[in-house]
């Protein structure tokens, strides 16, 4: 059999690509694949669209048709009836317009609003090296200064208080340095810490006062009872998370430790705090702490709540950091040992930087949780946004208003928490690219 080599039964050249059917590309294709792939899908899609429509068709006119310029609930309702008729529901945003600054700052004096704002900006500047990494090293100076400047800005008073408080660290460091060189490093550490504490407890006050007498320098002071609204929530959230951070690291290390007593103390503390609701800890702050402190100790309620919130956050933080520690490969610990590093060196140089990096998303979500939980302070009558809602409701002008106030507070919380959770996702993605 001979074959004609020029004749082929198989096509040798490719056909030109055909455009896919119209139903599979473009919008139609997308809709078919993503919305109406099967009958069940189609039904679900239609149901979902219906639900979304019915919610939005009520909410959107209510929100955007609301009135911003009424001075009382009755006035606002009269306006709504006048414009839209009896059967329509519209929001009375006038209450937000009138009480906006109180919901934000509580009783904080109006002409001093710049101070908390500035404190917040400084805080972000201080956090920038931690949050974004690649920034000029000099910003670290801001990070160091913020813990002293921010409280001073918020509470005001003599400028010498933050300065002398900072001096405590200087004193501690100097003593540590001197004793370490002269006698022994461990003794140096102990004495350094001790001398700093002694400075803060006994010397700081008189020295500050003396300096204030010589060079009076200060700004108007604001009592902490004037703090309120979202400012209070943010303040409690931020102090809680920053103060709980070192405490959380210590607790996490303690829990991982081989020292049985230290370990059981840490486990006991963590489990105790995590086992009780925050509200009971706040009860402790508001009604019990007085019993546990020496008689006559007068102690600001905000400070008490801050301590409790810090303790609460520290227990959760410890668990987050413990997760980070556990996630590190054992090889890292062994490598650190092989290099001959001692425990603290290994922690400082090898373990912690990696463990903390892994834990950052967890830390952010702890922060979001804590920030949301600050609303519980309204139950012990502190002037947070929810308590302010109650205050405003007890004003005879706005007596009976509900949805606008709660809706606004919920919206602001949503904005804060949502952007933080997005940020934590961004961090997660950024950190995942390591390998």
């Amino acid at each position, binding site marked *: 059999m001979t074959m004609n080599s020029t004749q082929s039964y198989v096509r040798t050249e490719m056909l030109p690509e055909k455009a896919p059917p119209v139903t599979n590309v473009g919008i139609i294709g997308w809709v078919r694949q993503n919305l109406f792939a099967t009958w069940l899908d189609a039904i679900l899609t239609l149901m979902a669209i219906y639900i979304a429509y019915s919610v939005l068709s009520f909410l959107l006119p209510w929100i955007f048709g609301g009135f911003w310029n009424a001075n009382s609930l009755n006035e606002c309702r009269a306006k709504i009836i006048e414009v839209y008729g009896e059967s329509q529901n519209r929001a009375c945003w006038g209450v937000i317009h009138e009480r906006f600054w*109180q919901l934000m700052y509580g009783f904080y004096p109006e002409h001093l609003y710049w101070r908390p704002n500035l404190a917040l900006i400084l805080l972000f500047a201080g956090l920038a090296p931690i949050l974004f990494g690649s920034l000029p090293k000099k910003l670290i100076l801001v990070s160091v200064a913020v813990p002293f400047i921010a409280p001073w800005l918020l509470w005001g008073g003599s400028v010498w208080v933050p300065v002398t408080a900072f001096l405590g660290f200087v004193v501690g460091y100097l003593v540590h340095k001197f004793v370490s060189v002269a006698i022994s490093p461990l003794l140096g550490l102990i004495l350094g810490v001790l001398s700093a504490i002694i400075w803060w407890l006994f010397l700081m006050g008189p020295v500050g006062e003396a300096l204030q007498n010589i060079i009076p320098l200060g700004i108007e002071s604001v009592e902490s*009872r004037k703090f309120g609204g979202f400012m209070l929530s943010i303040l409690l959230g931020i102090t809680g998370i920053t103060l709980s951070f070192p405490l959380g690291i210590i607790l996490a290390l303690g829990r991982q430790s081989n020292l049985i007593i230290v370990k059981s103390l840490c486990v006991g503390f963590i489990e105790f705090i995590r086992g009780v609701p925050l509200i009971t800890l706040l009860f402790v702050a508001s009604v019990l702490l007085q019993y546990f402190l020496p008689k006559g*100790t007068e102690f600001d309620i905000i400070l008490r709540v801050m301590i409790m919130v810090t303790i609460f956050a520290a227990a959760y933080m410890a668990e987050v950091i413990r997760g980070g520690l556990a996630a590190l490969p054992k090889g890292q610990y062994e490598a650190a040992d092989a290099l001959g590093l001692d425990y603290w060196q290994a922690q400082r140089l090898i373990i912690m930087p990696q463990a903390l990096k892994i834990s950052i998303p967890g830390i952010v979500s702890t922060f979001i949780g804590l920030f949301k939980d600050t609303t519980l302070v309204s139950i012990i009558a502190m002037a947070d946004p929810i*308590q302010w809602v109650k205050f405003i409701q007890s004003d*005879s002008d706005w007596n009976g208003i509900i949805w606008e106030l709660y809706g606004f507070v919920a919206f602001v919380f949503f904005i804060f928490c949502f952007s933080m959770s997005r940020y934590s996702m961004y961090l997660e993605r950024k950190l995942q690219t390591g390998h």
Partner: protein
Amino acid sequence: MKKSVFLGALTVASLTAGIAAAGTLDDVKARGKLNCGVSTGLVGFASPDANGKWEGYDVAVCRAVAAAVLGDNTAVEFVPLSSKTRFTALASGEVDMLARNTTWTFSRDVDLKLDFVGVNYYDGQGFMVPKALGVTSAKDLDGATVCIQTGTTTELNLADFFRTNGISYEPVPVENNAESQQQYLSGACDTLTTDASGLAATRAAFENPGDHIILPEIISKEPLGPLVRHGDNEWGDVVRWTLNALISAEELGITSANIEELSKGTNNPEINRILGTEGNLGEMLGLDADWAKRAISSEGNFGEIFEANIGEKTPIGLARGLNAQWTEGGLIYSPPFR
């Protein structure tokens, strides 16, 4: 003051801004501010307005005390306290006095170690129902759902009332007055019970007050008044006699309008003693001679405070009733300034 262990001394030295020493009066003077516990928002009695300024009937008492002691009726730090935290805050020294619709009872006075210095409002617990319900007596409320604020004496009175009358009810506990009002209006409870003054105040805020009636039964006595810590009698005297000065001022016709004129001297020796032109009452209290004059000019006399905050011309619209002066058939009665 007894110090427990050495650490105790340490903390006291460090943490305290000021130590609650022997006398609250001295503390307040040294601080330059009066810490006054008020409720967390009750229409007419205490609520912050749009500028953050506290206003109300109880607030006025605090302001009068601040004016008497410190000479400035704005030198008050208002501390909103929930019904749970109020006594602890007072006992621990967080506030110097409490003016927060608190009922004077035996156990609070004796067991909780508090001192009530007087009564600024004689109240009693009542019931409000919608007219449409057709109820005319609290004894007809068998099986009703009752809205009640928790953490108050009203809760105990309510249980006792229904128990002694052998009828049943369903309590719906709510946290604050605004909340109970919402619940009642929406029909989530058939009747609302609280102090009659509170009922009237609540009803006044309704769109159609005429659709609701307050039942005739008053099931308890609720003398409301300011209170201080037990054991500091000097301070208790200051608050007590400031309140009495407001009451006597009304009785004697001293008002914020004529006080300047009267303080030049009158032929009524009691007015003169109150206003400090005669005798040394202020000195006995540890204050100066003008103390009562300042207290009265702060927000007016007892009657003026009443009319301005909860009286018939306000949205609350309470009649004086039991809270009229004794000379007009009421119970408001001040011991003589002598």
